[in-house]
């Protein structure tokens, strides 16, 4: 159990590609941090640098008060769960879990105790004598977890461990991993591109984009106060609607480029006349009875049961697509709907995409 500190960590590949542009992150003891971002954002690279599988070009990685930049992965007191599990195909489950401990020269009975204990926690005791190819995907996932647990590491590293599982199993394993991490209280770094996984599992999230940490915070912070349009659209499903417009005189509303006007719940007199990107989440748009707000031409209605997703475009701007999430059902047959924003409206600078 330990804290993990990254300061100014950079990765520059020999071919000059700058993959990570200086990440600072402090992880408290026992905290569950999720690195999330689109493909190629550098999240896996960062994780692999912590693991010691990639060299650190600049900055320091500190695990439990010890700078580990130049240590071999085996000496860093970490354990890693790989996306494809990376189980040794020719070894039995027991040996897969025991291999790392044997390499450390641990006593046989201590190895046995740890493997059986981990197998008990993960409920894989009956499979200890099988080989990985005799196991299902979920069981292999558990063995990979078990291999990490037996090491009793300071830090757990997960590299998209659930992406090879089917949807149902993924939800189940998500809960199990989170519960297990709570129970063991081991500091964890978890990489995923799935924002639902990220939101549900993380104590804190690091949203990465283009090798930079766009925002670090709790899931609710990121949902309620995204600092950039990137975070705003990445967190939350369906994505936040972004609409270009200009703040009206007095700052009480935003005149959209397409013609409609959206009222601001909190007047922003300081921004009057400024070009902004207005962000509003699909679930914060509601039908407006009084004719205010904007007119949405419906393209597609998806009934999900509990709620209904309306996909459409703004009247007057074919390309400006908007999604609305309504709770309950939606009367079919309408080809347009009048919607207005409720309280949660976000304003971003149109040039930089930063929150204002």
């Amino acid at each position: 159990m330990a804290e993990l500190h990254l300061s100014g960590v950079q990765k520059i590949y020999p071919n000059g590609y700058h993959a990570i542009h200086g990440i600072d992150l402090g992880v408290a003891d026992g905290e569950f941090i999720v690195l999330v971002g689109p493909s190629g954002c550098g999240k896996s690279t960062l994780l692999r640098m912590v693991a010691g599988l990639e060299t650190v070009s600049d900055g320091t990685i500190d695990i439990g008060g010890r700078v580990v930049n130049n240590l071999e992965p085996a000496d860093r007191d970490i354990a890693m769960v790989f996306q494809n599990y990376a189980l040794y195909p020719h070894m039995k489950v027991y040996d897969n879990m025991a291999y790392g401990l044997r390499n450390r020269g641990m006593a046989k009975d201590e190895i046995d105790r740890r493997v059986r204990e981990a197998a008990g926690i993960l409920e894989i005791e009956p499979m200890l004598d099988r080989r990985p190819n005799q196991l299902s995907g979920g069981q292999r996932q558990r063995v990979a977890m078990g291999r990490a647990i037996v090491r009793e590491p300071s830090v757990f590293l997960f590299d998209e461990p659930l992406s090879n599982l089917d949807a149902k199993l993924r939800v189940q394993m998500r809960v199990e991993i989170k519960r297990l991490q709570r129970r063991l209280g081991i500091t964890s770094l978890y990489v995923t591109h799935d924002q639902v996984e990220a939101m549900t599992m993380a104590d804190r999230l690091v949203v990465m984009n283009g090798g930079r940490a766009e925002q670090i915070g709790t899931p609710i912070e990121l949902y309620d106060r995204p600092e950039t349009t990137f975070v705003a659209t990445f967190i939350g499903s369906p994505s936040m609607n972004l609409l270009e417009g200009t703040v009206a005189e007095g700052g009480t509303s935003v005149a959209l480029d397409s013609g409609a006007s959206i009222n601001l719940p909190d007047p922003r007199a300081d921004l009057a006349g400024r070009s902004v990107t207005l962000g509003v989440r699909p679930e914060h748009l509601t039908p407006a009875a009084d004719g205010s707000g904007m007119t949405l031409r419906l393209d597609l209605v998806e009934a999900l049961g509990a709620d209904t997703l309306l996909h459409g475009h703004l009247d007057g701007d074919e390309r400006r697509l908007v999604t609305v999430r309504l709770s309950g059902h939606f009367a079919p047959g309408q080809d347009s709907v009048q919607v207005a924003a409720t309280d949660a409206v976000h304003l971003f600078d149109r040039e930089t995409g930063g929150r204002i």
Partner: protein
Amino acid sequence: MVENRPYLTVLSHLVVILGIIITVMPIWITFVASTHPIEHIMDGTIPMWPGDKFFENYATVLGAGVADAGGIPVGTMLFNSLVMALSITIGKIAISLIAAYAIVYFDFPFRMACFWLIFITLMLPVEVRILPTFAVVANLGLLNSYVGLSLPLIASATATFLFRQFFLTVPEELAEAARIDGAGPWKFFKDILLPLSRTNIAALFVILFIYGWNQYLWPLLVTTDESFYTIVMGIQRMTQAAESLPLWHLVMATTMLAMLPPVIVVVVMQKLFVKGLVETEK
């Protein structure tokens, strides 16, 4: 392909049976000839059924040897061939495994150059480089020795290439997991890569053993001492017996014996051999 047409069944069986006859017939004749006295073979008609000299003929070749062919007992030649074939096979596999491991898993200067250097030697069969190789072996004083018989044939581009291709299919994460598990390069090779290559090694063992066993030209060149003669060149010498007709019945018996070890290797390792050629799951 699951069709039930009687004519097709008959036809395909006919083709198979024909194929078997073509393949087995010469071996059968060889066997039959090895069980007759020499007179039966030389009188113009080839017997089709085994004669009564089976034990006599085989005892002669295994024990005393054929006087007209230098009198080397076949047992000695079989042993020489076995030593040579095994040395070549094991040496080739060991060297190729290590070379492929270096090329795939280690990043060193001129790595690709090394790979291509090995690879282009595929284009040069033994016969092309046989004179310089002979000169080297002769200068090293390795003529008439097991080392001289096997060492020059050990380097193998084919096996190196095959192992390289196999190693490339082993997921990279396996090596990384091993690193995290504290396995160094040697441990990873021994504990993980080698066991995973088991079927490939078996397949290559079969192929290379037969290759080594059937070597003819090279042993012919480097051995002048009869005690180092191998069985394949021994057969050839028997057929060229000086001042007398070849003792065909004994030549055939020797041939049967020469066929035996490769057959045993194939039969014993068949299961692994096929697995090594078709297996895709890692």
